[in-house]
């Protein structure tokens, strides 16, 4: 096989298999990885932990050759290497398996393995199948190379991907959230498999959000936060701790603590809204159920009073989008009730809910938030088409539309060359301001913010957060969905944690909130 010999010679040494030396990766307006140094040793399962946006994905994409560091070096077997392409990384023996299967569903496993070989060679299906079986046996699993990929479960597909990586001569395997979509049983199988692979003198990097898995399968743990490596547990220390101690320590590293006073954890104190416990809630959600193929949502119970900000924490993809869309009316509600100011709205249309004062600031800004080719002025009125005074008897009133746009652009500080500029040409931060301007009107009673600062630069993050505070100060009910704990701690009165479509706990935002939410997010105590 092509990469085998190169990989074997490159990695046949005693030191770390792969080392990151002060690696920094910058994107416009953001430092995704900040001077990270980590050694990955042979024979170890090395767990990388961190919240969404901590910089794990960037790190993986540099190790697999999809991106190159802005500064610093990556050494493979002690030799600085330029991982200039995914092919180069593969040749050096670095393989990766992701959350979603990368196999072509219409081909058999053996055919999938034969992909990527020279096109003029007829694939030797039987030879490949035999080799696959042998490789699988060597790590203690059985697979059927003749099976059609689409007929297999995700767990089986990932096992096949690992076998493929091993066949390519990978001595260093990255499992990027590979257990995220698996059933607990399949996840356990994969965990045992990675331990076996590591015992063979290979290196495994395992990225997960689940602390139980990290402690159960990992030899060594490194924690990233806000692009920096903030700590870790070497094997000796990890072995010496019992499960609870390890969990506590990791949660402390991942989410920080207010007591240590380290940077980025020093926050403004939680908001002190004057909340009247007896006041009637504006938004009330009762036993809400929402259908979804991947993540059905059920048993959602929430009450939000005037001026209150309720945060929804959780790893991406745990039903937050489904919940937001069901509340806004973009997705049918299977069961349960939603009350807005005492009126049940779960059967009302999107427009009907909006007229009653429900706003939804979507996180899919370019995909559904705006029509990119349309001018800023029309995008500001996307949800009011046909309404007076902008349309009269269905006819456009250009003067009114322009007046509205000019006002909103000024009030929300939308930086645009003009109100006629196509909205798609604005920067992410300005598109977000446009959405905020559209959704935060005087009639608004309750607002759903979905990841309101996702992908924005610091200035725009601050601007967005101010708008959220203003909305609460104006006695609106605010539901704030975010994957960033710091943001939730800064803005929310209470924080609900979502996991697999359910709310697994609601925490008052006080001194212990960080630890409690961190524990709930990481599945401690499940």
């Amino acid at each position, binding site marked *: 096989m092509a990469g085998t010999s190169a990989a074997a010679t490159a990695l046949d040494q005693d030191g770390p298999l792969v080392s990151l030396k002060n690696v920094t990766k910058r994107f416009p307006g953001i430092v995704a990885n900040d001077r990270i140094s980590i050694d990955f040793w042979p024979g170890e399962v090395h767990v990388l932990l961190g919240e969404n946006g901590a910089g794990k994905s960037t790190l993986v994409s540099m190790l697999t050759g999809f991106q190159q560091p802005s500064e610093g070096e990556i050494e493979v077997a002690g030799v600085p290497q330029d991982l200039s392409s995914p092919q180069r990384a593969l040749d050096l023996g670095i393989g990766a398996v992701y959350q979603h299967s990368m196999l072509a569903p219409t081909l058999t496993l053996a055919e999938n393995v034969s992909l990527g070989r020279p096109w003029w060679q007829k694939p030797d299906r039987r030879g490949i199948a035999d080799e696959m079986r042998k490789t699988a046996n060597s790590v203690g699993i059985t697979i059927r190379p003749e099976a059609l990929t689409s007929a297999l479960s995700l767990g089986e597909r990932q096992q096949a991907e690992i076998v493929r990586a091993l066949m390519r001569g990978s001595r260093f395997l990255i499992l990027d959230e590979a257990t995220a979509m698996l059933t607990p049983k399949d996840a356990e199988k994969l965990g045992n498999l990675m331990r076996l692979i590591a015992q063979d003198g290979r290196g495994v990097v395992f990225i997960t959000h689940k602390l139980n898995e990290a402690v159960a399968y990992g030899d060594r743990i490194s924690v990233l936060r806000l692009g920096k490596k903030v700590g870790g547990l070497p094997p000796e220390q990890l072995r010496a701790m019992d499960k609870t101690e390890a969990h506590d320590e990791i949660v402390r590293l991942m989410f920080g603590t207010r007591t240590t006073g380290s940077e980025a954890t020093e926050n403004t104190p939680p908001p002190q809204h004057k909340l009247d416990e007896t006041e009637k809630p504006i938004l009330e959600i009762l036993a809400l159920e929402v259908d979804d193929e991947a993540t059905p949502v059920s048993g959602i119970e929430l009450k939000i009073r005037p001026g209150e900000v309720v945060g929804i924490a959780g790893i991406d993809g745990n039903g937050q989008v489904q919940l937001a869309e069901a509340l806004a009316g973009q997705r049918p509600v299977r069961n349960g009730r939603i009350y807005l100011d005492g009126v049940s709205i779960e059967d009302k249309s*999107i427009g009907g809910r909006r007229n009653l004062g429900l706003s939804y600031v979507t996180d*899919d800004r370019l995909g559904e938030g705006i029509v990119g080719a349309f001018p800023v002025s029309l995008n500001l009125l996307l949800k009011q088409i046909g309404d007076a005074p902008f349309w009269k008897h269905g006819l456009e009133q250009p003067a009114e539309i322009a007046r509205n746009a000019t006002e909103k652009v000024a009030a929300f500080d939308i930086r645009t060359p003009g109100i006629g500029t196509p909205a798609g040409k604005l920067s992410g931060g300005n598109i977000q301001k446009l959405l905020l301007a559209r959704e935060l009107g005087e009639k608004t009673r309750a607002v759903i913010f979905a990841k309101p600062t996702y992908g924005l630069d610091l200035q725009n993050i601050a601007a967005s957060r101010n708008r959220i505070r203003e909305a609460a100060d104006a006695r609106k009910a605010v539901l704030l969905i975010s994957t960033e704990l710091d943001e939730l701690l800064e803005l929310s009165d209470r924080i609900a944690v979502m996991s697999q479509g359910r709310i697994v706990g609601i925490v008052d935002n006080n001194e212990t909130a960080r630890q409690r939410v961190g524990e709930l997010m990481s599945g401690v105590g499940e």
Partner: protein
Amino acid sequence: MTSETAIAPESGGKERKVRLNMHDDRLHFLIITIGPVLATLVIASLILLAMGVSPLDYYGYIFQRGVMSPSGVQATLTRMGPLLLIAASLIVCFRAGIWNLGGDAQFILGAVFVAAAGPELVDALPAWLMLLLCLAIGAAAGAVWSLVPAFLRAYQGINEIITTMMMTFLGGSLANVLVKLVFLDPETTVPQTRTLAVPDRLPRLFDTTVSSGVLLGLAAVLIVHFTMNRTAFGLRLRIVGANAKAAVHAGLPVATLTVIVFSISAGLAGLAGAVSVLGQNGNVRADWNPAYTLTIVPLVFLARFNGFATIAFVFLFSVLSIGSESAARRLGVPNYFTLVTMATLLILMAVAEMIDQRRSKGKAV
């Protein structure tokens, strides 16, 4: 965003730049509009020379027939009626992001039902009411023929390109069957419907032979243009076309709007069939199918769905096709040489546009 478009307060230099740009732009515009026309004439002339025909004779004749002679102009204008209605039909659906390519069947079915109904109604009703009713029948026939693709697209998400084209085969055959078996004129030997007498057809304009169908066509294109650009209804359709997810997010009833778009678009195609019969032919013969739709599709695209540009392109196409029909008889150049000329022009315009876009992209970087 490029720094050029940013709002920077450096006025002096910028103004000059703008003026330069404007000069550039005008020249530019001329090159990308006139250039392809000239290049087309050259290429088509070469082909004519190879066929042993003098290009000057050929184009001179077309020009004279299509634009200079009264009868030619009248024929050109009359032909524009149905073509403009089809253009309007296509503008509606394309701007709403829907590919109704079933216009040919919608057209022919509209024509057949009008040809069947007209002679029946002409004795029972006053002329104006008969005509109005016939126009409505044509539009309805076209719209009904689009319902299957419309509902499949709206509620099942099935690609309408395939379904409308399939419905075209069915519709064309159905029209033939109707003409040959059901609406057959018993008094002729040729299979065709009964013929509407000339005085009973759409009124002619002034003292010419130009049918008022052209006015209907012009009105349709202008109304569609205005509706799409200036009304709330048109804006809703454009949002569905430009970003269906945003339409859902904004609370628009996307499925209902989709069915409405199909109905309007197919209704206009059916109306085109009605105008063809009421203004021009007076009847429908078996196997008659002018297949206008696919010819108009590229015209509408090159006009970028702009109503006025569409009218200009349709006029040009009519001149060429009427002129070349006579030229065919006179000079022995086959009739479909018009299509060669048109196709060459369309391809060259597309190429010019591509070069233009690449240039402006190069400038932006």
